[in-house]
């Protein structure tokens, strides 16, 4: 979905240098008009003791030029180790010390979001009300992630908190394909695997689908790709399709390992999007490579 000819839509994300870690992987397929509504790039680490509400608020103060809007949310639970079935373990939430929080740090236009909590940093781009187009992974989102992650590590050091131990990265692309006015908005017209039955049943009234694939990440890391797709009101309604790639990290992973894993997760998501969706729609979305 990266278009090398397009300009970053968000000036504040452009020009951020992360030249120390060259972008890994091969050039991704690219679309002029991808049906993206949100991208999330995240790193999960072991909970940093003491990184509670007060230090998080101080961290937010440090970034208020870029993210002037701050909102408070309950923390995201930790991801299960990669490859472990969601049904194993009871989905419990463990709080250490004072109850933990997650901060949303939002840009003025609210299309850029930094989510930060004791064990997670996530950089989101959201289409939302912004008139800007998808700012592209290589041009803007990856540099923004690198900057904010490095900034968090520096902050932890500055305030005397322990260093974090990254355990995994994840990349999520949220696509909303078609809409009420689209005549071909049946999920079978979008996903190759969901062509409707030619028999009595015809097109399904609703569809909820989750598929997972194993893949190999940076340095042979265990990794998983998940696709969630749903069309809740049958043909004519929007089709939501999330693609999430997660990859494990080793005990001594540094920021370069995090970025390389992130690159491969991104490439996996984009390649999967192309492989899973109908080529006819690629033309509509302006595939350029």
């Amino acid at each position: 979905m990266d278009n090398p000819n397009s300009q970053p839509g968000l000036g504040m994300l452009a020009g951020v240098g992360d030249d120390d870690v060259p972008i890994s992987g091969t050039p991704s397929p690219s679309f002029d008009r991808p049906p993206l509504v949100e991208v999330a790039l995240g790193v999960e680490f072991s909970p940093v003791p003491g990184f509670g509400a007060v230090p998080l608020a101080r961290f937010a103060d440090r970034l208020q030029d870029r993210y002037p809007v701050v909102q408070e949310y309950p923390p995201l639970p930790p991801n299960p180790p990669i490859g472990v079935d969601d049904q194993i373990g009871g989905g419990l939430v463990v709080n250490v010390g004072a109850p933990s929080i997650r901060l949303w740090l939002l840009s003025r236009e609210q299309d850029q979001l930094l989510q930060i909590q004791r064990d997670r940093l996530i950089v989101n781009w959201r289409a939302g009300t912004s008139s800007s187009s998808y700012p592209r992974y290589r041009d803007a989102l990856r540099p923004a992630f690198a900057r904010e992650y490095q900034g968090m590590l520096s902050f932890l050091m500055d305030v005397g908190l322990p260093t974090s131990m990254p355990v995994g990265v994840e990349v999520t692309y949220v696509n909303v394909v078609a809409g009420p006015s689209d005549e071909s908005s049946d999920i079978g017209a979008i996903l190759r695997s969901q062509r409707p039955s030619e028999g009595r049943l015809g097109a399904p009234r609703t569809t909820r689908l989750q598929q997972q694939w194993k893949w190999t990440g940076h340095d042979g890391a265990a990794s998983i790709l998940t696709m969630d797709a749903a069309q809740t009101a049958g043909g004519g309604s929007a089709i939501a399709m999330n693609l999430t790639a997660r990859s494990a990290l080793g005990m001594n992973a540094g920021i370069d390992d995090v970025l390389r894993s992130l690159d491969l997760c991104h490439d996996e998501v984009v390649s999967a999007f192309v492989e899973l969706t109908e080529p006819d729609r690629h033309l509509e979305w302006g595939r350029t490579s």
Partner: protein
Amino acid sequence: MGVATAPQPWPSHHQPTKFLIQRDTASRDDQRQIAVTFPPNYSAAKLDLMNFAVGKLNQLLRLERGWDGLGATQVAETAAGSAIRWLDLLAEEDTFSPQIFPLSNGGAQVEWLAGGESLEIEIGPQGDVGILGLDAAGNVLVEGDYPDPHGSSELIMAARKHLSALSGAVRAAGSSRT
């Protein structure tokens, strides 16, 4: 899968909608504790085990520095939290209560012993984990670390299987006595 903010048409698998909160009362000006939120459908039998472990770990968190008389580090909250998460991953409804004790480096150890067989989870102060399972002859049945870039699913499945066998042996020994 949780990190995105766009409205989703499917329910989240990770966000409980209703909480039963188990929180130790802080009896001192001491914030060093873990609190666990269980989803509403959590197994009652496993809840007893988990509550036992939360209570025990909160006791360990209150140990002062040098608790061993030799300058041992206080047990890290991250280690205690990791112990609970791994116990949840490995234990089943009929798992018997483990021994839980502090390590001098700020970590904790969770250990089951039955008929000469054992399963040990050694948790480091940063929450990293080493697992070792032995049979009665001392042969290694399960061994591995977390985080591991090559994945932890096989380690977890092997540890669950071994722990299930240990629990079965304890159950069988109990019923043979009655």
